[in-house]
């Protein structure tokens, strides 16, 4: 019953701040929509330049395919060799395609031209993907040509993309954004809560009251968990209804994983709150931690790309496991038998964080 009053008080304090209400329930919708569009590895309308020095038909046909592709936006076409470098250097184009006739030893013009693809390597990700697409266009052209001539192709890989056939990056990012949303809201709300009590000197009154340490601790964590779950549902609705990402799994598994994750993240946020002397300090710690969690989670880049030493950090990052589990449930419709190891790891991390955080809280109040 005492816990009920503690939770009620926390919820009143949170909901009475109109700005916070907006941040909690309206900004998630805006965030998900903006993040959904902005955080995308899909490439569209990459500005390219073409310098065609070939007199053959093949070059013209390949160029026509590039022109028609929604992936590329042809900004420059030229027949002069000196035009290739300046637009790339100036940033007007991200890629430059140079076609010239290929000759044999007798200087006879061959059927297929030589193609050089110059990429702007500063945006390495876009360049890599765009280079792949160019190669695909050229390869397809040659294969079609060979088929028309009745020549069989000895071997060709035909990839089939399951779970996300159109390779939409929003399908991968969307579930991750939901996990991120759950983190950001609960982390900021909770890391400020105990510090606020210290600042307005109400913590002393709480500590002297009949409330137990555990009741204060849980009373601080529960309201944030409730709000976090509401935000997660809002996030889910936006990614499913707005972005049309299919939800193939079981919602109960999603809530189970989220609850385990919440135990971990709330314990961490309370640890920040115990260690911080002011709200400003707590906010800084929360923001810094959030960045680390996000970068080490596999949200932007695969965890496998992280160097071995930093992998240890990724291995104890709870967000990494939640993102993986959410993607499994969301896109693959997998059941617990597919991700129980991740759930177990998440549970272990949650247990460790709750123990450390609770011990620190007890140590703090007995100073």
């Amino acid at each position: 019953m005492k816990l009920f009053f503690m939770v009620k008080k926390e919820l009143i304090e949170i909901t009475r701040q109109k700005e916070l209400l907006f941040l909690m329930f309206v900004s998630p919708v805006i965030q998900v929509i903006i993040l959904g569009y902005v955080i995308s590895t899909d490439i569209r309308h990459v500005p390219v330049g073409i310098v065609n020095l070939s007199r053959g038909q093949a070059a013209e046909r390949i160029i026509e395919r590039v022109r028609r592709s929604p992936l590329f936006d042809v900004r420059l076409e030229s027949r002069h060799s000196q035009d290739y470098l300046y637009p790339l250097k100036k940033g007007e184009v991200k890629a430059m395609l140079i076609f010239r006739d290929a000759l044999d030893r007798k200087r006879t013009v061959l059927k297929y031209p030589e193609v050089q693809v110059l990429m702007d390597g500063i945006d390495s990700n876009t360049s890599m993907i765009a280079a792949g697409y160019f190669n695909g266009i050229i390869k397809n052209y040659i294969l079609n040509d060979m088929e028309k001539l009745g020549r069989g192709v000895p071997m060709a890989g035909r990839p089939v993309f399951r779970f996300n056939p159109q390779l939409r990056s929003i399908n991968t990012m969307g579930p991750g954004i939901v996990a991120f949303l759950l983190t950001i809201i609960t982390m900021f709300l909770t890391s400020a809560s105990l510090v606020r009590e210290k600042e307005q000197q109400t913590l002393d009154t709480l500590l002297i009251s009949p409330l137990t340490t555990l009741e204060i601790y849980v009373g601080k964590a529960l309201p944030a968990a409730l709000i976090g779950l509401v935000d997660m549902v809002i996030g889910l609705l936006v990614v499913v209804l707005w972005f049309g990402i299919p939800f193939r799994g079981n919602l109960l598994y999603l809530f189970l994983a989220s609850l385990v994750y919440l135990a971990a993240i709330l314990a961490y946020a309370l640890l920040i709150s115990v260690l911080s002397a002011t709200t400003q300090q707590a906010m800084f710690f929360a923001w810094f931690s959030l960045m680390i969690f996000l970068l080490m989670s596999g949200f932007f880049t695969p965890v496998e790309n992280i160097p071995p030493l930093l992998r240890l950090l990724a291995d104890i990052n709870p967000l990494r496991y939640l993102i993986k589990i959410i993607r499994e449930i969301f896109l693959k419709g997998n059941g617990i038998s597919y991700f129980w190891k991740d759930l177990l790891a998440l549970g272990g991390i949650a247990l460790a964080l709750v123990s450390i955080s609770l011990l620190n809280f007890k140590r703090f109040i007995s100073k």
Partner: protein
Amino acid sequence: MSAAAPAIAVRDLCKNFGHFQAVKRISFEVAPGEIVGFLGPNGAGKTTTIKMITGLLKITSGAVLINGLDNREHLAAIKKKIGYMSQKFSLYHLLTAQENIEFFGGISGLAPRELKASVARMGEQVAAAVLRQKIQDVPPGIRQKVALFVCLLPEPEIILLDEPTSGVDPEARRLFWSEIYGLKKRGKTLLVSTHNLDEAEYCDRIIIIHNGEIVAAGAPDELLRQKGKASIEELFKDAIQEHGQD
């Protein structure tokens, strides 16, 4: 414990913060039903001492006995006997006066019916509209009244008030002290810290603390007579000068 045990007994109490000694081996007692004023300038060690008595601050050395029980060993039992009101009144600014009462009553284990009765009791002291106002919007005098009210909700035997009259007007202070007298009549023990020297006259005994040391202690009239001073202010200045000013 025998009936003669002091409500509060402070024995050789010390508190160090790193190399800084905030409280230096002080000892005093407060008898049951007594009002003791804990006087001293800002930074004298009043709040630190009160926090050690409540168990909120760890004692460096010495001991605090509440009704004969050591507060390091019997804190849970002692918490039920004491009420504490801190300098800033310790209320939740975003909650209304009524919500504050319901919250503090609720965590003190009051039943819903008792909570309702408590709110009604407070309603007799302040206007109903005030009860529905957020604490941050009510005047300091009302805030102080509500803070004392919530401190008394669990019916503590011993009440520790840390600078309860700071920031309130003289009329509110007068009313506050009349309430303190009412509590004494109900058999409560009170230790009240203040830096308002004129409040000493309301106390059965005063303890003057300076730089973490007790520089004078006794009944106000008795102290004035002993030291041959005309006012508490004179007595206070003299005691501080005797022990060296910062």
